[in-house]
């Protein structure tokens, strides 16, 4: 039982970081109807921004965190302006967006390899390694912080989307861009806002992922997991993205803990395919009818 709880808490922690990534994916998908495969590159840059903030600039953790998240929000906006806005203006088919996203992703990865180098770098030890004991349960401090900060960010995002005027504009635009514009909503600003929010969450995820493992140029590949989680939960649905991510994190750690870590990704993909066979729109996805 203790081992199960232990695995569960680990799973929740990594699942919450997947959720940050998956929500960024889903936000963009809900507005633009395409998967932003360059999101992983933004997460990778977030990890590097945090790393250089702490090492080269010697900033305290909070300042490095702000630098990383503000930096990725900005990168995400610039990415949208360069890679997607020209396509939006020409009303290009969505395949072009995917190609542009892949190009941007390759650019970011290789740019970092060329300028910083391909070798993984460890984050400086900021969070003490010794776990907090609750009864027989040993909670890693970093895992706890990851979970709490991620959950906090997601809660703030939900409040923003549900309670503010701009949040309403995002919801309306996710449903229909033309109808939103007819309400007087500047849909171009909504797109920028969505990329900024996704970029901010990518920064948080990047810093945590770098702290938990290491920083390296292909760190963005991890977003494949969050993409699976987003599809699993239902692309375009934010609660679905969170649910899918947490489930994926928990399933992964349980498989790694009880079976073998070599089967971890195999099982994750099997579950994805299984869910999509039964429910092509994911657990909480929009039905095809109401998007038409």
């Amino acid at each position, binding site marked *: 039982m203790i081992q199960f709880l232990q695995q569960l808490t680990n799973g929740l922690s990594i699942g919450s970081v997947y959720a940050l990534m998956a929500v960024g994916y889903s936000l963009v998908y809900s507005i633009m109807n395409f998967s932003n495969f360059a999101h992983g590159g933004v997460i990778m840059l977030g990890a590097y921004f945090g790393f250089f903030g702490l090492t080269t600039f010697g900033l305290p953790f909070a300042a490095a965190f702000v630098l990383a998240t503000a930096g990725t929000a900005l990168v995400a906006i610039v990415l949208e302006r360069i890679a997607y806005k020209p396509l939006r203006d020409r009303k290009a088919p969505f395949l072009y967006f995917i190609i542009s996203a892949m190009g941007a992703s390759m650019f970011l990865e290789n740019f970092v390899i060329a300028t910083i180098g391909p070798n993984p770098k460890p984050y400086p030890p900021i969070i003490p390694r010794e776990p907090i004991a609750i009864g027989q349960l040993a909670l890693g401090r970093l895992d706890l912080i990851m979970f709490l900060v991620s959950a906090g960010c997601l809660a703030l995002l939900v409040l923003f989307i549900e309670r503010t005027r701009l949040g309403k504009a995002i919801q309306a635009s996710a449903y229909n861009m033309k*109808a939103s*514009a007819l*309400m007087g909503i500047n849909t171009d600003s909504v797109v920028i806002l969505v990329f900024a929010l996704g970029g901010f969450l990518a920064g948080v995820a990047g810093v945590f992922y770098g702290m938990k493992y290491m920083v390296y140029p292909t760190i963005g590949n991890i977003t494949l997991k969050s993409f699976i989680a987003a599809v699993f939960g239902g692309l375009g649905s934010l609660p679905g993205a969170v649910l899918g991510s947490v489930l994926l994190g928990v399933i992964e750690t349980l498989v790694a803990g009880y079976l073998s870590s070599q089967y971890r990704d195999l099982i994750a993909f099997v579950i994805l395919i299984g869910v999509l066979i039964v429910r092509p729109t994911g657990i909480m996805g929009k039905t095809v009818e109401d998007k038409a």
Partner: protein
Amino acid sequence: MLTVRDIHVSYGGIRALKGVSLRVEKGEIVTIIGANGAGKSTLLNAISGFLRLGSGDILYQDKPLPKRPDRVVRAGICHVPEGRLVFANLTVEDNLRMGAYLRRDKAAIAADLEKVFGLFPRLKERQRQIAGTLSGGEQQMLAMGRALMTDGDLVLMDEPSLGLAPLLVQTVFDIILEIRALGKTILLVEQNAYKALDAADRAYVLEQGRIVKEGPAAEVKADPSVRAAYLGTESNQAG
């Protein structure tokens, strides 16, 4: 109030409007009739800022109309789009409140909400219902009510009777007259030429991107070529 001067619009490689000019005076109902593909919706989308003008210009209250949809709304033109485009995932009331997105005066918004419910008692009954579950006629009313919530003075309506049962078609045209009675000006695009000409003060006939006829609605309705092309016999259109 609205002056469209010699506008040309192309999209998807097709020249959809080839020099269209028209005007709408305050308090009027002006209708544009024409066959499918004549460019009626294109014209409304060009006014609303969704399509770029190749040439020509559009004046609203003697000033150039902005070229971005949200700014056109801000300028005071609202648009009931073809196909209604209600927010099917939101309640009726939330849909109407989205119409007031640009407005800050809560008292005025509440007053207009009551006005819309007065116009559409059906929507009041269903204000907590999710818009996607409404019937086609109710969604059309919601789209009209939502446009009115922007408090625009000029209402563009794109095929409001499309796909509705004959009884509802009459209701929609009754409501158009009531909306005018609220002090709004209406530019109406319709395939149901018979009803549209009955409701309108003036009419334009659009054919293949060009205005081929214009005048008082009664005159256009009496024109033999219009009768032949768009009206058929009264009995099969009166619905």
